[in-house]
């Protein structure tokens, strides 16, 4: 379970999150929606431990552990995974090499045995196939020259390899064509389990037709302005965020 209480966070001296509360029980999928600049990516970075984002108040616990006390790699080992809105390119590093280093680092940290080469290859091939990723693409340098959609798929491939307990998807649907959206959603749904929590950040109700959330939260000006069931997303699709402009409505 993820528990965020009264979270305040700053970047470059500017307060972006101010008093965000959120509880995400194990096994649930929560969607986060909200206008551009409302702090959705900021929340995801704070959860993943980006040092540029300074937490000034509040707490985050993950399965009872203080997440704010951990380095990003420790969080990854503890099961936190962020599928980036803008995945990074790393020239010269074959995607396969990167995947393998990441998987083995996390396995090692969790006290599991590292993958042998054949085991790793088999696992990657299997998961890549599910996401309809061409294995040839994985021989190319990480994300370099990948299309927007390919990058996003690659994020989900990493997620399925690392088997995290907390999946944070930051606009994974943006840049995906209609077929890819379905493929990626299937991939995400395949990972749904009673032990796994997911935070799905999106602007579009469309994604939530595929990945049906248990709860929907609207983020506005750095805090949760409203929460509801999946129907909230439908409502937003019609009415937009106008009412969340200046309004500092209390969280659910």
């Amino acid at each position: 379970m993820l528990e965020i209480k009264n979270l305040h966070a700053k970047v470059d001296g500017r307060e972006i999150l101010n008093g965000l509360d959120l509880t995400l029980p194990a096994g649930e999928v929560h969607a986060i929606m909200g206008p551009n600049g409302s702090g959705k990516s900021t929340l995801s970075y704070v959860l993943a431990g980006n040092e540029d984002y300074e937490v000034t108040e509040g707490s985050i616990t993950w399965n009872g552990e203080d997440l704010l006390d951990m380095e990003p790699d420790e969080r990854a080992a503890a099961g936190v995974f962020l599928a980036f809105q803008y995945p990074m390119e790393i020239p010269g590093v074959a995607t396969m090499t990167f995947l393998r280093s990441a998987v083995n680092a996390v396995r090692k940290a969790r006290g599991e045995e590292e993958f042998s080469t054949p085991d790793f290859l088999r696992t990657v091939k299997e998961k890549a196939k599910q996401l309809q990723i061409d294995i040839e693409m994985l021989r190319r340098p990480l994300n370099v020259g990948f299309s927007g959609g390919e990058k996003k798929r690659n994020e989900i491939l990493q997620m399925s390899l690392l088997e995290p307990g907390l999946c944070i998807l930051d606009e994974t649907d943006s840049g995906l064509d209609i077929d890819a959206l379905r493929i990626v959603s299937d991939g995400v749904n395949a990972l749904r389990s009673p032990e796994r929590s997911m935070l799905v950040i999106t602007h579009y109700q469309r994604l939530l037709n595929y990945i049906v959330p248990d709860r929907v939260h609207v983020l506005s000006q750095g805090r949760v302005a409203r929460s509801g069931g999946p129907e909230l997303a439908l409502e937003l699709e019609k009415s937009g965020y106008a009412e969340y402009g200046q309004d500092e409505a209390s969280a659910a």
Partner: protein
Amino acid sequence: MPAVEETVERVKEIDVDKYKYGFSTDIESVKAPKGLNEDIVRFISAKKEEPEWMLEWRLEAYKRWRTMTEPTWAKVHYPKIDFEDLYYYAAPKSTEGPKSLDEVDPELLRTYEKLGIPLKEQEVLAGVQGAPKVAVDAVFDSVSVVTTFRDELAKAGVIFCSISEAVKDHPDLVKKYLGSVVPVTDNFYATLNSAVFSDGSFVYVPEGVRCPMELSTYFRINAENTGQFERTLIIADKGSYVSYLEGCTAPMRDENQLHAAVVELVALEDAEIKYSTVQNWYPGDAEGKGGVYNFVTKRGDCRGDRSKISWTQVETGSAITWKYPSCILRGHGSRGEFYSIAISNGYQQVDSGTKMIHLGRDTSSRIISKGIAAGFSDNTYRGLVSAHRRATNARNFTCCDSLLIGNRCGAHTVPYIEAKNASATFEHEATTSKISDDQLFYCLSRGLSEEEAVALIVNGFVRDVLQQLPMEFMAETQKLIGISLEGSVG
């Protein structure tokens, strides 16, 4: 290439006692008095039982050296070296040095552990008394390799031995080629080396022979060891081919050690020499104390038409590196290549690069340099590409990429280009980049530690050059790169 594996295998098989005895005679303690004068030169020559002509050659060099002054043009800084305060010949004393592993600096042990060198090897490397001397470094030491493969090489007609042996056993070849690429008077350190050189490798590959295996020499500067003035000479006769790799490490010492080697390569008609270096001399501690001054002259002469010389270097060690493996493209249609990875961390200073001297017609050269600077280090690429008046259609491609880690290091590119022939085509590309915080964060969020992340990103950055190394050394080198960059972030 299986030769390297075979070397490793063979050494595992070497009878420990036999090997230990073989070694102990070598380590009988010998030391010349401090300082340098004619008597010291005579002493060294006598110790090596050299013929008169060799001694004369050394004395000539010595006299010349006395008239020279140290070069100061490189972008490196260090206290003036007192050449009278150095030992020019020293063999290890078995009665000194750390007694047990506990007395060895743990940082050194960790380093070797990470290099994957077994513990016994570590004991030998650190100079521990009484440890079984099953040393990997002994394998890569020129003498052992010669012993291991002498028969096989001899069958092919290849001579591979120490330069001291060559002086005695192959005087005609040595006389003909020694100093023919790097003249005795070439520069301060080369001249010094000519006067006092200790050991190094000699390779002769006869006409039309493709050397049946990789040749490798593993140099070490030991605590009280010799080898600071190595001399290597490789001759590839017409139509022959040889690939040679040298590895270097040194234990940690508080005082700076001077290492001034000279390497000469000669490629005759249609011959090819591939020379790879993995240099990991002790770089000094985190405060910049100690470390090796690596002042090296390496030069290859593409003497014959259509000959080719390729330098690949991975420079991770040394407090100061001053090194420009160069090619003289004398033969028509000859080709020179220089692939370099130079990593500096802590307070290391690197001033390295190459010279491609196009003299013949239709000569071509290629330079790929990857400099990585971290910590407080300074990393300079200095290169010269020149085309002589008669070097019609000379072509060069140069690409210098620098990667900075942190804000306190520096990377500099100093390319010199001289084209005295209008038909020359010289291309130059250069980039400087930084490991971005975003890239690091991305890796970290995938569970990689900061050090793993940096190693991964840097290995990606140097990939083009890594691929030039003999296969067996790629993995080891990748690891080495990771180790050299430890503590470079955060």
